[in-house]
């Protein structure tokens, strides 16, 4: 299969997509590294050793949450730029300038956060743990992105597929929620702990909603590209997902605030809406993975084989969505919420949705985007999809599943024992059974280590492809799952999936 010679104006747009792929993978690597250290911190002996080395959990946690969010936003943005590659036409000088500005501002902010947080310079807030001054380049970069995106997607906006709308709303939502996240800078908000938390929870919920819209849009765009079926982006199911997803993004955070002094009306609305989103998402992901599977089974062998990892990752997101539906019910139904809120169930739910749904969909997108890189750029035909990578994707799911299960299990045991043996506030887990106290940290660390290992195995293959120098000529065959040196037996493999 060959790629047609590029139009000159396509080169810059293609480079923009690649830049965001690289940025997303870099953010993922940082999130993984500090995430692993955070997991190891939960083992008391290791935590103490790390403290002696000057590695503080107070720096690791915000670094992990910030760069995990960055991975999701940048991954989604890479897909958005892939869409702009087709729709944008020639890159205008102003657009190019804004794009460069956005990348430079975000690179500055990313480096700034990496340097300042370990030095103890922090806002002390959830998700926005960096110093508020570093929010300025992030916000300015986002506005530049919105300018470019709406300049292209705005044309014929109401006729466009649903993912264009999802990205548009997600972008505007980010502008709003990012501003709201900084409401604490107002003395009236900071000086009232209840109001501060009401607003902070609301803003965090909307932030998650914003990046969910980027991920949902990515899933639908990817499904459309892989299957070639453009009707899905216009379907009622897809638009229902947008409607329910959006409604959820500004209400379902309330399952974290049932016990916060605030209007019960806010809580009731949140509870009623929160049950709906995952059901519709489950339907969408299920339909998309069925479409991709059907296309692969009946399609061309090489194409189908090359999408092995994309299929696995997209398909696994369906099962994760089903699992997280159960977890969401645990957190959202008030009597159950009273039992488990404030335990590791919340962490398990957050990690399950972030890794199982968002990351699996984005990794599927990364595999698809990397496969488009011409082999002439990469130097040799390096496999992006192959048997080993497919096995790694399965291992990744198992490790993430073990981590999420353990956190839910430990949280549930904590919740039940807390119910049976209430203790005074501030008493550190006196209700927790001894066996759980002894095992919670080590098991968490082992699961985290396994997950990290599988991520490394995957990224070891993908990072060299992503970071190979860019070739503006854009000639040659795309990187496929087929390595250059391949035995005839491997080529004739009946599964159609190449070995690495």
């Amino acid at each position, binding site marked *: 299969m060959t790629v047609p010679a590029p139009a000159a104006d396509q080169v810059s747009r293609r480079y923009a997509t690649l830049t965001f792929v690289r940025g997303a993978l870099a953010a993922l690597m940082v999130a993984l590294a500090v995430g692993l250290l955070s997991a190891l911190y939960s083992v008391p002996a290791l935590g103490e050793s790390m403290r002696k080395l000057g590695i503080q*959990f107070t720096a690791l946690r915000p670094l992990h949450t910030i760069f995990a969010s960055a991975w999701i936003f940048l991954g989604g943005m890479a897909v958005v730029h892939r869409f702009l590659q087709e729709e944008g036409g020639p890159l205008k000088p102003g657009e190019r300038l804004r794009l460069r500005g956005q990348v430079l501002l975000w690179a500055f902010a990313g480096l700034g956060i990496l340097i300042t947080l370990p030095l103890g310079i922090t806002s002390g807030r959830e998700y926005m743990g960096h110093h508020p001054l570093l929010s300025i380049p992030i916000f300015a970069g986002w506005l530049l992105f919105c300018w470019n995106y709406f300049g292209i997607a705005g044309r014929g906006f109401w006729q466009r597929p649903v993912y264009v709308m999802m990205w548009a709303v997600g972008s505007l939502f980010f502008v709003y929620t990012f501003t709201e996240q900084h409401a604490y800078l107002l003395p009236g908000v900071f000086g009232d*702990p209840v109001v501060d938390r009401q607003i902070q929870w609301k803003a965090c919920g909307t932030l998650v909603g914003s990046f969910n819209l980027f991920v949902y849009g990515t899933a639908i765009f990817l499904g459309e590209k892989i299957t070639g079926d453009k009707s899905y982006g216009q379907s009622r199911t897809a638009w229902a997902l947008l409607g329910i997803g959006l409604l959820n993004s500004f209400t379902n955070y309330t399952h974290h605030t049932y016990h916060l002094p605030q209007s019960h009306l806010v809580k009731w609305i949140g509870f009623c809406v929160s049950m709906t989103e995952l059901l519709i998402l489950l339907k969408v992901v299920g339909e998309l993975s069925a479409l991709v599977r059907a296309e692969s089974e009946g399609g061309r062998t090489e194409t189908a084989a090359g999408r092995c990892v994309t299929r696995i990752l997209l398909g696994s997101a369906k099962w994760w969505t089903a699992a997280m539906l159960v977890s969401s019910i645990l957190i959202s139904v008030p*009597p159950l919420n009273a039992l488990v809120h*404030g335990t590791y169930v919340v962490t398990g739910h957050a990690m399950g949705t972030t890794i199982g749904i968002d990351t699996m969909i984005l990794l599927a997108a990364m595999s698809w985007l990397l496969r488009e890189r011409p082999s002439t750029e990469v130097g040799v035909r390096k496999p992006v999809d192959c048997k080993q990578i497919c096995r790694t994707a399965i291992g990744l799911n198992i490790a993430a599943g073990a981590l999420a299960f353990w956190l839910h299990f430990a949280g549930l045991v904590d919740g039940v024992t807390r119910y049976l043996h209430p203790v005074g506030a501030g008493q550190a887990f006196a209700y927790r059974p001894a066996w759980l106290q002894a095992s919670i940290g080590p098991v968490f660390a082992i699961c985290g280590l396994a997950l990290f290992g599988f991520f490394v195995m995957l990224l070891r293959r993908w990072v060299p492809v992503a970071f190979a120098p860019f070739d503006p000529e854009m000639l040659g065959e795309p990187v496929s799952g087929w390595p250059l040196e391949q035995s005839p037996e491997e080529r004739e493999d009946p599964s159609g999936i190449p070995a690495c």
Partner: protein
Amino acid sequence: MRPGHRKLLLGFLAACFFGQTALVYSDPTPTTPLSEEALGGARTWHANNCQSCHQIYGFGGFLGPDLTNVAARYPGTALDGWLTHVLAGTGQMPHFALDEGERAGLAAFLREVDTTGIGQARVGPGDSGGFAAGELPWWEYE
């Protein structure tokens, strides 16, 4: 879906968003602003990123316990003593070199947070249908 329907959907969602935002910002629940000393304590809380490990109203990390109502357990000056003890570093809690003023501010902050409500909806045995008074889930919490 037709463009007209799409506009209606987006319009409806925008109205829901602004309605919900208005509900949160006009919440009639009475709250108490922090005193000057407690405000200093809130700054200390954030500057040291206490939220990484501890929660206030369930907001924060889970490495340490929720501290919303810790002041109720250590009334009066007992809280200052407890803070001095834990801030020196104990178990998984690292050492924090806070001066006396910062420690007093933190104590004031935790005392005033304690007066705002119950941080964790703990369901426990009690005399109110199996629930401890003041620890009911929100739909029964009055």
